[in-house]
């Protein structure tokens, strides 16, 4: 019976809101705008996360947040979303001036949110933060824009080249260190074991992250700061850079042509590539240490070893670092609690509990290959430049489609990407002049 009432209650209330709407518009009788009450010392803070439901991070974080509420007296309302949902919610909330107080985020969001003018400047809090020296330079750089700190790094992982040793041994292939060695293997592993030798992500969020690493190894960047503090892709201004960028697209095309990668890779996103590596349908792949979680369900994962990302013989080592900022929004009515929460998440205690193998602090790690061997690669870590990545990411995905699906000449693809990136920067008002 009670259940029926619960269903009927909103039904009964509908006529009320419909007829009462004229008054609602004036907002005369309503409580304050975000619906929270103000009886405690500070406002409750809205906190948006994007952890994987049911995974260890959630299990460790929830009691810590409870503890935080008890210790500080700050009220916290935490809600979980996926990153895609979270991103769109922040955009809508920014337009509706109804932002949460604190939120997890991806590095790709930083410049975009900063430009919306919704991020709180945490520089002063960073300077007084006891653990700041435990954060590596490249991770700190990912928290910075315009010389201001806008987030605390709650999670940071490098990408590494993971190899199924048994499959390579079966095919009699050594772990490659250079692009040339990868290409020389060609379809040897495929022929001997039935598993693709190498992996590449042709589309989706992870493909720009892969591309930016290969570009860095070849010595070029997707956008470089200009004298005016704005950014620009300089490949079309500089024939040497264009040639270097073209070698990257050439590498992608050669990977396909040599039979080293699955023929369908051009349209694979991380969902497919990670799955194929975990089930040993792919013998080696550049990915992150979250795959450690597959050891418990996939016996194929027992033979995995961790290596640096293969680089051009005349290039330099590089790997992508994904350092995720815990952002505080400047519309928060309780900045002190919001900032406290952001810092608490990055504290050694919380990091050890919730991100033991993916911590931004150099002092937090576990004694496994998933932590140690990955951390060893952090020194060569690179990140995206602090520009609005939305359109630029799409440009990078499109460039891979041109190279891998349309078989465009590598030079033409590089030249196209250079123009496309500058056009996107111009649209975003971030294009610098040389």
């Amino acid at each position, binding site marked *: 019976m009670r259940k029926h009432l619960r269903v009927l209650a909103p039904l009964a209330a509908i006529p009320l809101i*419909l007829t009462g709407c*004229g008054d609602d518009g004036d907002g005369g009788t309503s409580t304050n705008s975000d619906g929270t009450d103000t009886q405690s010392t500070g406002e409750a803070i809205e906190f948006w996360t994007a952890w994987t439901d049911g995974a260890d991070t959630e299990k460790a974080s929830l009691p810590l947040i409870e503890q935080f509420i008890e210790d500080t007296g700050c009220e916290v309302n935490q809600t979980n979303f996926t990153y895609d949902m979270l991103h769109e919610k922040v955009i809508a909330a920014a337009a509706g001036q109804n932002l949460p107080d604190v939120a997890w985020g991806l590095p790709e969001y930083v410049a975009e949110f900063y430009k919306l003018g919704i991020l709180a400047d945490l520089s002063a809090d960073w300077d007084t933060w006891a653990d700041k020296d435990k954060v590596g330079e490249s991770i700190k750089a990912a928290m910075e824009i315009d010389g201001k700190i806008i987030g605390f790094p709650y999670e940071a992982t490098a990408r590494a080249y993971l190899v199924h040793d048994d499959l390579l041994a079966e095919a009699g292939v050594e772990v490659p260190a250079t692009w040339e060695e990868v290409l020389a293997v060609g379809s040897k592993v495929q022929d001997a074991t039935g598993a693709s030798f190498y992996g590449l992500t042709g589309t989706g969020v992870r493909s720009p992250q892969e591309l930016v690493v290969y570009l860095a190894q070849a010595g070029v960047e997707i956008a470089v700061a200009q004298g005016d503090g704005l950014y620009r892709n300089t490949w079309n201004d500089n024939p040497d850079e264009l040639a270097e960028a073209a070698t990257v697209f050439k590498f992608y095309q050669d990977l396909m042509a040599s039979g080293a990668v*699955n023929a*369908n890779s051009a349209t694979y996103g991380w969902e497919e590539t990670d799955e*194929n590596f975990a089930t040993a349908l792919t013998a080696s792949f550049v990915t992150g240490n979250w795959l450690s979680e597959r050891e418990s369900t996939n016996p194929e994962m027992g033979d995995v070893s961790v290596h640096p990302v293969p680089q051009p013989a005349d290039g330099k080592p590089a790997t992508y670092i994904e350092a995720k900022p815990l952002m505080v929004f400047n519309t928060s009515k309780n900045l002190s609690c919001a900032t406290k929460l952001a810092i608490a998440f990055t504290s050694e205690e919380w990091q050890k509990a919730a991100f033991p193998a993916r911590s931004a602090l150099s002092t937090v790690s576990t004694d496994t290959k998933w932590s140690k061997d990955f951390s060893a690669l952090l020194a060569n870590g690179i990140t995206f430049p602090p520009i609005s990545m939305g359109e630029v990411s799409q440009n990078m995905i499109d460039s891979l489609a041109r190279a891998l*699906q*349309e078989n465009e000449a590598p030079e033409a693809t590089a030249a196209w990407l250079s123009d496309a990136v500058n056009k996107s920067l111009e649209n975003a008002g971030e294009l610098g002049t040389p």
Partner: protein
Amino acid sequence: MSPAWIFIGGLIAYPLVRVLIDAFSNANLVNPAVSGFAGLGNFATVTADPHFGGAVQHTLVWTAGSVVGEYAIGLGSALLLNRPMRGQGVFRMMTFIPWLVPIIVAGLTWGWMLNPDFGIVNRVLVDIGAVDTPINFLGDPDWAMPTCIFVNIWRSFPYYTISFLAALQAIPTDLYEAAAIDGASAPRRFASVTFPHLRSVSLIIVFIHIVWTAVNFDFIWVMTEGGPNYATNTLPIMIYRYSMKQFDVGAASALSTMMLIGTTLVFVVYYRYRRKLSEEIVG
């Protein structure tokens, strides 16, 4: 009650008015400072977009392919389910299940099932020898659009089935008996008795599905995000990218306005037919 009516009317009309205004204005989703009259600038932005022509074409293929397929399977299944046979209740129930599956769930599940490496569909196809190597249904540019249409048909045809079934049941049986006595063959009976009774419901259902399919965003987004390499990029996906990724509400509204004009033309065609039917009945 009248404030409620005005309120509801306002909520329905508001987006329409707003889209029409924004189409001719400089408008940014998150930056209110961007404003002013843009003339036809937004329309120029849209038509100059290198993906515009392709998107128009894909939207037409997607809409026509889906509606034709849904109509054929919907009508066929309704005729089958209308036969007096044992177990029809169960068969009807099972036929309607796809329509009860939320679009995002349908898209994700089919995407998983159709994967070339670990999807069940390719597994079965290879095992029974129908294909030699797995087909990359959603990744191959030639397969992607037909696959999306196929999945959309799967999800949408039951609504046709329900509507046709209702109309079929309403046909007086004496009409069939009379036709049978006249010695009319089954196809003949369909053409002279059944189909005329389905005209009215066909008209409505085809029209609303043209509109729904043309503006549908979720299905393609969840399966391919418009890929591979824009092979399934439709106008609603472009609108989404303009508005939620580039924040260019002006361009998104201009594109919407263009879609509005297109679908209004479809409406005019519909309206003429319906008026004829309406006048036959109301007199």
